[in-house]
């Protein structure tokens, strides 16, 4: 996954999201903190990839670089051959932030549809380019069906103020899926939910993802969540933020509740935890200096 064999600008590649040598430093002089140092990441189309690490390891920064919300100081990002800026101009990025970020004056359904009305030209071009037969289009292209599948069929006309935290976050997820983006970027979307709600929403996300097979880059700080959802878990370490390990999750799909307790899953979790711990102990001596 993490490739280091190439320097210089990313080679445009229509089948991968590529991050090459990305570095990002905030502040300057003595106060400068290196959020990311020379990060290489490659995500093949159609994969669900989680990024996990302790706070301050730069996992959210990495996501913002891919989303085009920030520019890397060094290195570059390519989303299926396009720059992050081109990708957002073409409406091929779906972003789910940590908080639901819904518009309180719109109903649930209108919140899912609102991005249709923004940057219309790119939307039209996408529909023309996609043609009628794209896998998962039917579900993602119909906001009502999408919301119903996510368990919000009865709440279409409600305003965000009337919804629970889990319902709000599912609406935000539906909004991102409804764009039918090439890549979904999710920044700890479930971190504010309680345990029960989180498990339910995770499985609903998997259910919809299974049909759309959108490429997902998912930032989380929960090992269980990363293992349950992902094909690949990228473990990051802090100070400076870098990729410490890449763990492939060999669990069968579709994944359901039963998998939560399987031995394979526990084995995967154990490996991710071990890698995290290793990354953490690597950092410790520096802290003590």
């Amino acid at each position: 996954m993490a490739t280091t064999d190439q320097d210089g600008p990313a080679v445009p590649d229509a089948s991968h999201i590529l991050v090459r040598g990305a570095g990002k430093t905030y502040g300057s002089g003595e106060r400068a903190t290196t959020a990311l140092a020379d990060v290489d990441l490659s995500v093949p189309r159609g994969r669900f990839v989680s990024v996990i690490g302790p706070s301050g390891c730069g996992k959210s920064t990495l996501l913002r670089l891919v989303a085009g919300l920030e520019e890397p100081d060094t290195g570059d990002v390519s989303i299926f051959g396009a720059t992050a800026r081109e990708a957002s101009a073409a409406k091929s990025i779906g972003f789910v932030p940590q908080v639901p970020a819904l518009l309180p004056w719109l109903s649930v359904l209108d919140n899912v549809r609102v991005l249709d009305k923004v940057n219309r030209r790119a939307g039209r071009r996408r529909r023309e380019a996609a043609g009628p037969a794209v896998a998962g289009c039917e579900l993602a292209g119909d906001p009502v069906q999408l919301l119903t599948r996510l368990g919000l069929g009865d709440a279409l006309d409600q305003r965000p103020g009337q919804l629970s935290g889990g319902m709000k976050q599912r609406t935000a997820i539906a909004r991102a899926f409804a764009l039918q983006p090439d890549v979904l970027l999710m920044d700890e979307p479930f971190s504010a939910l309680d345990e029960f709600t989180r498990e339910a929403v995770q499985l609903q996300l998997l259910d919809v993802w299974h049909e759309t097979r959108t490429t997902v880059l998912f930032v989380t700080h929960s090992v269980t969540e990363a293992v349950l959802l992902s094909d690949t878990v990228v473990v990051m370490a802090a100070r400076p933020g870098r990729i410490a390990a890449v763990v492939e999750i060999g669990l069968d799909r579709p994944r359901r509740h039963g998998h939560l307790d399987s031995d394979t899953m526990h084995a995967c979790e154990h490996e991710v935890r071990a890698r995290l711990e290793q990354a953490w102990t690597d950092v410790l001596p520096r802290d003590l200096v």
Partner: protein
Amino acid sequence: MSGADTWTARAGRRVRRVLRAAARPLHPRWWLPTVVALAAAAVVWTLVARANPYVLPALGAVGDQLSTQPGFYLRNAAATLQEALLGLVAGSLAAFALAVAISESSLLRRAVMPLVVVLNVTPVVAIAPALVVAFGFGVLPKLIVTALITFFPVLMNTATGLRSVAAPVLQVFRTVDASRADVLWRLRIPSALPYVFAALRVVFPLSIVGAIVAEFSAAGATQGLGTVISVASSNSQLDRVFAAIACLALMGAVLLLLVTALERRVLSWHESQARPS
């Protein structure tokens, strides 16, 4: 169809809520405190009026004024209301437009804000006589005074509201390359509405103050409750002064009611409008 079900259910809920709201004022526990307080105030008023008729006129005399000359008071109230509302609309629209402009251009903000602040710290009452000299005894100077009074609160609140969009929402819009116009119309202006209404609640009653002040300054104006008050005071006709004041208070209350009703409609989504259920 589940759509029809929810529609009828919603209509039913609405009807029940309206009925409940309509029935509420009929209960003594609802109206009794208000009535008692009003009666007590009337008693105090009457006692003061008996002891010293140059402090307060008798309530009966004020009532007589209003009931014997309703046309006179209505005509003057209409004149004042017209000045107030015209100034209010002009001032609010100008303030809203300027707030949008400075939220879009920091260059413009740096240029304009010092002027606006100077304007705000200048007592508008002090400008009124000069405006009368410049624009005469017609509607215009009154409209300008009212507009000036309205301007600053609406400008500041709208500017704050336009900046109140949460960062994550802006990020979502940025990742689909939303234009500035889209961000303005779909995010900033709707987010600013609660702030705009908070300002309107303040400036609706203030607009009457503006109109009256302007009328006071324009000695020789022929119409308006302010003119009525200044003429009647110089003739020591206290009953007439207080009849005009009663009209002003009523106008203020009606304006406030109006803006509250408008707010309920426009901001039904906002937490400030949540009804206890």
